[in-house]
């Protein structure tokens, strides 16, 4: 066989390369890739081997060309493996998985080489920062896709990502309406009101000592309320629409902000506060010029925690009664109809929305607490 002949002249330069080569030999021994009848065509199989061998050999080229060869080889092979499984679902044999792992090792090698690249321009360093996690994430999806389809895992247990993707693309209007209902109404409103309320109560508790002693324990108690107990009560109080979900989000986001702001207000040093005293600074001047800026890292911590809590709260609250729209409503009804791909589509959208939400808050944090050692780096 031609691929066997070329094996003798291949010289890997990394452990991933060696491992991939061994896996390739194993794959040859465990021939064929699938037990089903159409199987992989001879041309496809040879191409997969050639692509992987090219990637193994890539370390012998100059780094820039080597990275491209590694990238194309590993991902081309993975693509052909996934494409070829169509029609052979559930019949993958050891050979298929060995080739998949070989491609994964080579992609790993590709990321390793990329990480050691010293970018020369800002543009290149930004691109690198994006490419490395992108490859990482892509491989989670590739392995998920290959295993679910190769092993024929029942759709109900775990649908392949391609089916989830197709479902997302096919249900954009429904998903859009759910996002509007859950995120743009309940989450945003509840997050803003809950966080602001926590912040203002923290200031009040700081200003008035008896509030500090009285409010903090009550705030603590409110945060300990189980969400699945509170949500149906809120639905009874505020009706089926988004207002009751916003109320749940307010309850969930209030306490982290309260506690963090109270802690943050004590974060300024004695010397800094004495300094304000020597200027005969008023309570509010000291608050705005010293204590709130010093508390900013704490406040942003609360905002980041709340960004994810708000999403969870709104989605869970929708399990207890909604109009026929909303992410939580969709999940609970589609589970009942065994439309698991739709559930996964909602999960993917929620994960994406949560990450964007968190990312926006983190960007604001970087801009406002640029002076903090954790942001400016030491």
């Amino acid at each position: 066989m031609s691929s066997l002949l070329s094996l003798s002249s291949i010289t890997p330069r990394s452990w991933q390369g060696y491992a991939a080569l061994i896996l390739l030999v194993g794959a040859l021994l465990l021939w064929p890739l699938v037990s089903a009848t159409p199987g992989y065509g001879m041309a496809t199989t040879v191409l997969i081997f050639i692509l992987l061998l090219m990637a193994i050999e890539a370390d012998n080229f100059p780094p820039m060309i080597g990275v491209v060869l590694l990238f194309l080889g590993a991902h081309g092979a993975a693509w052909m493996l996934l494409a070829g499984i169509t029609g052979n679902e559930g019949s993958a044999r050891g050979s298929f998985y060995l080739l998949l792992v070989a491609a994964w090792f080579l992609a790993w090698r590709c990321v390793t080489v990329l990480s050691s690249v010293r970018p020369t321009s800002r543009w290149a360093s930004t691109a690198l920062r994006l490419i490395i996690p992108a490859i990482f994430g892509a491989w989670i999806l590739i392995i998920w896709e290959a295993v679910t389809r190769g092993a024929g895992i029942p759709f109900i247990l775990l649908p392949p990502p391609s089916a989830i993707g197709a479902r997302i693309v096919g249900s954009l209007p429904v998903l859009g309406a759910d996002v509007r209902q859950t995120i743009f109404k309940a989450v945003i409103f509840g997050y803003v009101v809950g966080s602001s309320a926590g912040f203002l109560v923290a200031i009040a508790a700081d200003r008035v000592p008896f509030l500090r002693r009285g409010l903090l324990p009550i705030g603590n108690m409110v945060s300990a309320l189980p969400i699945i107990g509170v949500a149906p009560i809120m639905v009874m109080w505020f009706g089926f629409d988004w207002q009751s979900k916003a109320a749940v989000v307010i309850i969930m986001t209030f306490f982290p902000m309260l506690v963090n702001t109270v802690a943050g207000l004590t974060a300024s040093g004695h010397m800094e506060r004495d300094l304000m005293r020597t200027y005969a600074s008023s309570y509010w001047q000291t608050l705005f010029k010293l204590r709130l800026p010093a508390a900013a890292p704490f406040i942003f911590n609360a905002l980041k925690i709340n960004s994810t809590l708000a999403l969870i709260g709104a989605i869970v609250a929708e399990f207890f009664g909604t109009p026929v729209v909303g992410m939580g409503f969709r999940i609970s009804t589609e589970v009942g109809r065994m439309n698991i791909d739709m559930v996964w589509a909602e999960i993917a959208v929620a994960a994406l929305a949560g990450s964007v939400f968190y990312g926006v808050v983190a960007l604001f944090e970087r801009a406002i607490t640029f002076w903090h050692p954790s942001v400016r780096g030491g």
Partner: protein
Amino acid sequence: MTGASPAVVSASKLGLTFQTNDGPVQALSNVDLTIGKGEFVSFIGPSGCGKTTLLRVIADLEKPTSGAISVNGMTPEQARQRRAYGYVFQAAALYPWRTIERNVALPLEIMGLSRAEQAARIKRTLDLVNLSGFEKKYPWQLSGGMQQRASIARALAFDADLLLMDEPFGALDEIVRDHLNEQLLELWERTNKTICFVTHSIPEAVYLSTRIIVMSPRPGRVSDVIESTLPKKRPLDIRETPEFLAIAARVRDGLRAGHSYDD
């Protein structure tokens, strides 16, 4: 000398006892003190002798428990409310979220000065401490010596006649400290301020002061007062003259006599 000009600080029978968990600690006992306008007074002594506490009492950051004290003829609290003094702490205590010029502007903002007045004073005081050109830098982009100079500029910005300095150069290395001492003397001469300076360095105290107040611990009290005979103009190498060494020796004797360590 002190009788000729009105007293900026005058204390009599001043005492301060802290109530701690281990019982009362007498930080200051029976301190009598008069500081005249334009004097440079150093407080020197081992740790625990109450020199910082005394400075904090003058600044109304601590309340005395006995005796009387007046600053500019008022109680320390009234003096603080009228921004009678600038205070320089052991660390620069600059706000990291403000640039150097905004840090210097901080007391001016609190006093409600106009933007134009603020800008003029920032420029003048930063010139005074040789930090022109660093207005837009953040404190963490500057060296320790520059940070401390910025904090001095901040204390000078609102033009109080009294400057209280609590070991301002204690955390800096010797070379930077010499340099800043020289600049401080120059600044004192140019602005004619009254300066109270806490230190634990004998050469620093002798080099800077017109009067050195030696303090001793347990309880914190004044054990010796030494008038300096050095001229007002002091190059750094004055520290090798016999006159300087004689004063330093007297300070050292005073410190030793005041020591009541049992070990």
